[in-house]
């Protein structure tokens, strides 16, 4: 986000800062507001919507509303908040969150490192595409939870099995989107660069990669989301730590408010990580403001 201060210091060099009369604070504030009105609006509407969601949740559970959907035993926001405060006093809870973040980070990074180059190669070379596409299409729809027994047997340690399942979650969305990006690269650009004498490596670097980058980032955002989706399945293996495990354990002891806390936690962490990737996307592709 552009800070107003940056713009203000970008004044002509001739005007010496000490000589300038001190600007009143409200001017800075007004300027900042004017520059960020779009973003503020979005934040404000988002906050109101979230507030309404919480209020609806509160009312539905307090009055135990039943209209086909039954809120009789769904925990209320207050109950979940109580769980949260209890969890915050427990050092174990932070451990759950941190370990899950680490697992997601490793699984996701590995998936990006493998899926993006693979997608580029599959998009460029027909033979690779024809060889690998059927395999990936078969593996892609398999849900994370079905992988649990295989993951345990495949990898020497459980930590690796867990990372493997989050890896699988991210891998396919990234691959599919990269392939899609490659299929949309304008052939005229490729031919033009070939005419100008570009070699394969340069074409990849200068044409294919930048052109499919927006789709790659879409893939990364979706992949990050799916990595969190597969977390509970992955951490069923762990038996000890992780926010997915926390949720699973709450289920096996039938503690509904802890289950809701785990769900919300995964949601918020997922939102945070997707935002990070979008931010990274803006940095890498300044030309592509979306």
């Amino acid at each position, binding site marked *: 986000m552009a800070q107003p201060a940056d713009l203000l210091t970008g004044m002509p060099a001739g005007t010496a800062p000490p000589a300038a009369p001190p600007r009143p604070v409200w001017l800075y504030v007004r300027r900042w507001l004017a520059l960020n009105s779009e973003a503020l609006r979005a934040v404000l509407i988002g906050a109101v919507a979230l507030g309404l969601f919480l209020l609806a949740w509160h009312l539905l559970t307090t009055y*135990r509303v039943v209209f086909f959907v*039954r809120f*009789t*035993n769904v925990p209320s926001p207050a109950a979940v908040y109580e769980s949260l405060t209890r969890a915050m006093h427990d050092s174990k809870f932070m451990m759950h969150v941190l370990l899950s973040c680490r697992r997601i980070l490793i699984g996701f990074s590995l998936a990006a490192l493998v899926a993006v180059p693979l997608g580029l190669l599959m998009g460029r070379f027909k033979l690779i595409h024809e060889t690998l596409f059927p395999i990936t299409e078969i593996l892609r729809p398999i849900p994370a*939870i079905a992988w*649990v*027994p295989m993951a*345990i*047997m495949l990898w020497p*340690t*459980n930590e690796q099995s867990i990372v493997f399942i989050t890896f699988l979650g991210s891998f396919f969305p990234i691959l599919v989107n990269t392939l899609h990006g490659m299929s949309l690269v304008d052939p005229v650009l490729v031919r033009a660069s070939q005419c100008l004498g570009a070699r394969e490596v340069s074409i990849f670097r200068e044409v294919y990669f930048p052109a499919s980058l927006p789709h790659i980032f879409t893939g990364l955002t979706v992949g990050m989301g799916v990595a969190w989706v597969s977390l509970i399945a992955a951490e*069923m*293996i*762990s*038996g*000890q730590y992780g926010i997915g*495990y926390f949720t699973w*354990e709450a*289920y*096996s*002891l*039938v*503690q509904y408010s802890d289950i809701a806390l785990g769900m919300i936690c995964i949601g918020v962490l997922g939102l945070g990580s997707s935002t990070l990737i979008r931010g990274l996307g803006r940095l890498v592709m300044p030309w592509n403001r979306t």
Partner: protein
Amino acid sequence: MGRMSKYRVLSAAAVASAALAAAPAASAQTTVTIGIGTQDTTTNTATTGTIIRQLHLLEKYLPTDGKYATIKFELEWQNFTSGPPVTNGMMANKLQFGMMGDYPLVVNGFTFDNNPESKSRLIAVSAYSLDGSGNGLVVHKDSPYYELSDLKGKLVSVPFGSAAHGMMLKAMQDRKWPADYFQLVSQSPEVGSTNLQEKKIDGHADFVPFAELLPFRGYARKIFDGVETNLPTWHGVVARTDFAEKYPEVVVAYLKAVIAANAWLREDPKRAAEKIQDWTGINKEVVYIFLGPGGNMTTDPTIKPQLIEAAATDVKVLQNLGRMKEFDPNKWVDDRYLRKAYAELHMDYDAALKSTKNYEIAGEDKFCKRPIGDPRKAGEVWVEGEAIAPFSSAACTLGAYADSKAKGKKINVAYVFDTARGIKLFADQAYFVAGGNNELSPFLLKKDAEAYATQVSGKVLSFDDALKSVVSGG
């Protein structure tokens, strides 16, 4: 777990009305769905779930007269691999009956305390073991662990919130071990078994039937049995009170079906074990070690005070873990329906309540040619395609085993009883002490066998050596 199978069965009432071919009557009928949550793989719930479903026993007893004349019952059976999902389904009113182990049961009752629509009540017991057999701890068969203390500091998994978890906590409490004596982690049976097979964990404690099933499947060895905790373990049935109060006759009908299932099981335990294998996928030899004569579980629907006392102990354990607040198991028991079912079948509830006897091995030992004296010193050999034959002692059992083997017969399994604890064992997993007079004393634990061997100045033999000794010594 999400694995779930549904069986929709029309009730006897519906069949009867269809037989009348009375089309107009159908319009006046209301349909009531009865949801029953079972645990097919948890063998000791067979008499309250699997058997009733497969033999259509409930349909036989469902009321059809009076206010039920216009009601058409539809049974919806749902199968789960552990108790908590059953509680979840009951809370959501998708299930009106549910069966599970002692810990999940207590959690079920407690969870329903906050439900404004309905409470849950314990209406019957599926099966129990007063000394706590059924739960157990297994290690990989190639591992160097032979007793619980060998696992100090090692990674042990157990499904948290299960009866097996309770056994572990009790065992640690009895030995005054600190909470971090093991690295205790939570794994469901599915995950834990695979992990044990792959040697990712050092030990796995689990409920029925896994402590017998995993050794039977050939990659695990049981080194701790729940009997050592001496805390009863049991499975039972809970029902929603809103349903039970509205349709009390249905609850009674269900309990009559439970009694009928018990009778069917004891009438021919071998047939029952084979059928249960077909229905649930649990090996018949494993089913039989639990539900057969002298088995490690006693099936009996009566709600015994000892079991409710044990439930109170479970509550304390859960409270110490911060998992539960106030809960009184005594107020949660409701035996009115069960008493009514017994009375209507002209059976004596109070007599059954007092008795804690299992049915035992009996008959004539055809190998040593004498009748069975002490059934807990006896043994059985199951030859493929033949009846399960009883033998009067461990030595006779092994003798008959060797004899059948020499005749080229395929032997499914042989059972003997632990000399010290009286629990039924797979003979090929036991340790034998050879004393004087060609006596053989089987033991589950190596340390028990060694202690006994010093006492009688005998020696400890593996199953194979014990077999050889009977052949050469006999």
